[in-house]
């Protein structure tokens, strides 16, 4: 048993094959739109406005609509309207597979229940996932949470995580970076990611990576992503009066020791390592 997405579960159960899954995901991507795209379509925002909101999202942990209101680009009522429309159009994987005829509607409910039971062990808050040595570490809980949120908000990557006994991603296929937070609270935050995940997260953080960047650039960009996570974590603590500093990213090798978390994502695999 391991942490997984519904699509992986369906393949393992022999209910769909990889091609069905790809078709469903492609169709979903044409139906599901982010709030900024929707606002541009309605003429409420310009593409530059959405870029401005995305920039701000790197600096503060808040959804697109909330920041657009803060910046005076949208009224709260407009955000509510857009969110309603977004939800109305939203297609989930199961619905897409049914729509494309790869799964029957009757079977979908049963499979969703089975999936929920299979994944119940992982359906816990990030704080509950922390090992006993980090249970009281606010910055560890905040950072774990931010890895999920910022992956989704900046890169559109959905992340599921589960504690792991060791780092399962090593060798040439692993792209590594780490940062260190010190001060009122301290934490080492390291990530090993496969090429797809590292490019997706790093590309979102740096807005630069091309199609075939060098290993050095990919790890550098992954380090920038961790910088953004750690910077947001520090900002949250500073608002509570706890001052922390951030050391520059270290690239190429994970620090020894620490607690590992497997990252199963919509863009690839990774391992997050937290240490005191």
């Amino acid at each position, binding site marked *: 048993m391991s942490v997984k997405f519904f699509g992986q579960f369906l393949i393992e159960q022999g209910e769909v094959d990889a091609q069905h899954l790809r078709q469903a995901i492609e169709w979903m991507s044409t139906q599901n739109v982010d709030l900024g795209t929707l606002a541009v379509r309605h003429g409420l925002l310009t593409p*530059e406005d959405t*870029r401005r909101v995305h*920039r701000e999202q*790197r*600096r*503060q*942990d808040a959804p697109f609509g909330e920041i657009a209101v803060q910046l005076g680009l949208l009224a709260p009522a407009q955000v509510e309207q857009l969110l309603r429309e977004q939800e109305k159009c939203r297609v989930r994987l199961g619905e897409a597979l049914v729509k494309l005829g790869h799964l029957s509607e009757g079977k979908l409910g049963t499979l969703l229940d089975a999936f929920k039971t299979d994944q119940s062990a992982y359906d816990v808050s990030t704080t509950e996932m922390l090992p006993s040595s980090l249970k009281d570490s606010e910055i560890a809980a905040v950072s774990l949470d931010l890895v999920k949120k910022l992956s989704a908000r900046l890169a559109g990557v959905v992340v599921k995580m589960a504690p792991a006994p060791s780092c399962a991603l090593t060798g040439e296929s692993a792209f590594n970076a780490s940062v260190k937070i010190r001060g009122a609270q301290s934490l080492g935050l390291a990530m090993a990611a496969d090429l797809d995940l590292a490019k997706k997260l*790093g590309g979102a*953080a*740096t*807005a*630069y*990576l091309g199609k075939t*960047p060098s290993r*050095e*650039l990919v790890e*550098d*960009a992954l*380090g*920038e992503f961790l*910088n*953004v996570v*750690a*910077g*947001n*974590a*520090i*900002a*949250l603590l*500073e608002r509570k009066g706890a001052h922390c500093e*951030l*050391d*520059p*990213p270290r690239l190429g090798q994970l620090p020894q020791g620490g607690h590992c978390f497997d990252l199963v994502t919509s863009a690839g695999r990774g391992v997050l390592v937290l240490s005191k």
Partner: protein
Amino acid sequence: MDDKLTVVVVDDSATARAQFTELAGQCQGVEIVGTASDGAEAVLVVAKAKPDLVVMDVVMPNLDGLAALRILRTRVPSSRIAMASSLGGSPGRAEEAFRLGAVQVISKPFDMNQLDTLFANEREAKAQRQAGGGRS
């Protein structure tokens, strides 16, 4: 009199330096005259190149951006310095950068609009300096 705005970019991130160089290369009248990957290297490069503008990261190894800013304001007062950061909203850090003499604090990753505005302001500041014969 040279009308080009000369710029040095300082960042420990290779992607940030490459992105800045690419975007600045698309701006007319801007010339990158040097790069550095930490604060200590920045002090040497800026002292030699004496650019109109330095765009410098905050968190860097060896000598961080704020420490380098403090040194450069004394050693190369003719170069104006903008600080760049990808970190979450820490108003204290931006305030400190302004207190130490930064002309602007911008966020990373860089984008064209932001750099256009920065370069336009700095061209104006350069023109005023040249017209008045004064320094920054």
